[in-house]
């Protein structure tokens, strides 16, 4: 798997591991859409299981955008991870590869404030449109009221 991705685009994979028998590939953020396209159409990963993010505040690059892919045919899963910087976080959308990414990415945009370029409908999904801040960021308080 990892070798196939490296053969497709040697610059795209920046790291990876298979701890707990789960394959993780770290992908250069600029390459994510093309790698996803390759994995879907060439490697049989027809399903995008989920997209989420992890905030590593205050480390830089601050955000990890995490994709879980599933191949029914091969009965395999793979995790892709892109590191995105904290100031004006932005990454390319994978909605052109899987339509299901639409809501998954909207959720990440809503709760983490990571923008996805070429997304057809990038609006908040869980919170009201006029909400301030992004709750799943580590510098967003768990409790407290606005003054």
């Amino acid at each position, binding site marked *: 798997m990892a070798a196939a991705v490296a053969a497709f685009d040697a610059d795209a994979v920046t790291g990876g591991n298979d701890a707990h028998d789960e394959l993780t590939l770290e992908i250069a953020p600029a390459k994510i859409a093309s790698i996803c396209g390759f994995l879907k159409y060439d490697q049989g990963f027809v399903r995008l299981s989920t997209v*989420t993010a992890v905030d590593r505040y205050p480390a830089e690059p601050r955000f990890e955008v995490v994709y879980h892919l599933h191949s029914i045919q091969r009965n395999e899963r793979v*995790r892709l991870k892109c590191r995105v910087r904290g100031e004006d976080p932005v990454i390319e959308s994978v909605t052109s590869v*899987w339509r*299901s990414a639409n809501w998954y990415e909207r959720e990440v945009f809503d709760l983490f404030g990571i923008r996805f370029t070429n997304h057809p409908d990038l609006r908040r*999904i869980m919170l009201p449109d006029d909400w301030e801040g992004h709750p799943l960021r580590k510098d967003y308080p*768990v409790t407290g009221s606005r003054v």
Partner: protein
Amino acid sequence: MSDSDLPGTVLTPAEEGAQAASGPRSMVLNMGPQHPSTHGVLRLLLELDGEMVVSCRPDIGYLHTGIEKEFEVKHYQQGVTLTDRVDYLAPLSMNLGYCLAVEKLLGLEIPGQAQWMRVMLTELTRLNSHLVWLGTHAMDVGAMSVFLYCFREREDILRIFEMFSGQRMMTSYFRIGGLALEPPRGWHQRVKKFIDVFPSRVDEYEDLLTNNRIWIGRTRGIGVISLEDMLDLGVTGPMLRAAGLKIDTRKDAPYTSYEKFDFEVPTRTESDVFARYQVRVEEMRQSARIVTQAMEGMPAGPWKADAPHVVLPDREKMKTQMEALIYHFKIVTEGFRVPEGEVYQVIESPRGELGFYVVSDGTAKPYRVHMRTPSFGNLQATGRMVEGSLIADVIASIGSMDFVLGDTDR
């Protein structure tokens, strides 16, 4: 408070714009967020041409609770109680997914009895969830009495849960390392009494519905969506199986010793509301088979893992042994540390693929817990499914998806 103060009850300027742009023949109808057939708070923006649906945009988030944020300030074991409240119709499936994920990070070995008990109770949860689905779905479509029959059996299941955990719905019975309590005395007779009659009860529901002309008229050929569309839109579970894809995590990547059980994965090919009904009814029969096997073959032995730094000691030991007392104090006050790492544990919930992505930074609280909930993925296909159909069929179609809004919005 007037109607216009409630969120979602009036159209926003952008939505009014959509209405104006859609031309004189069509109108935009706001279905929900308090529509009874949405079983929760789902809002559908329907653009109609007469009685035909031109477009459908689901609007979710009314039940967003911020549970994923809440996880980050709770000890791992406390997190179990949060999972119940996500998919409140299948609390034990949620418990199981979370516990398995954390146990994988900890590298814990779970004893046989706990595993089989987990299988048995998770399958009872599947029955519970499917019964609520069948009852309410039939009621939406116009068959009131099915609801009463389904809830009669559901009551029995809830009483079994109460017997095990002391709670009917928010059970939190699975804990990291095994079960919360020793299985109660007499559970075997209680479960046996229920599961022996249950298949005949499924026959009763089928008598009421399967050959019922009104039921067939309202469900056959309705809500059809292609398998390719569903895979692309993130749909999982019974809906995929009703479109002919034999996919079930219990078979494909067995967890909690599901590989030791003998059961079928039912499929249909029509991919309509009726096929989804048939798949779920057959799943109930298969779940009953699994419960019977688990009950008959239940291994003896411990019901929690041998890991004193994770699992609370027995009450008796805690009061008589110094070491047990120390462990008890430490687990209760500061929790237990989980090695750094990340896992994605997928299980088959009654609604489809349920994934727990747990990231640990080596402390006693999770760094990040993400739940990939089946309802969220499934609901994305609503638009594709109902566009071009009659407005009356919208209710049958969304009913056949079996979503739970707590599971969608988290």
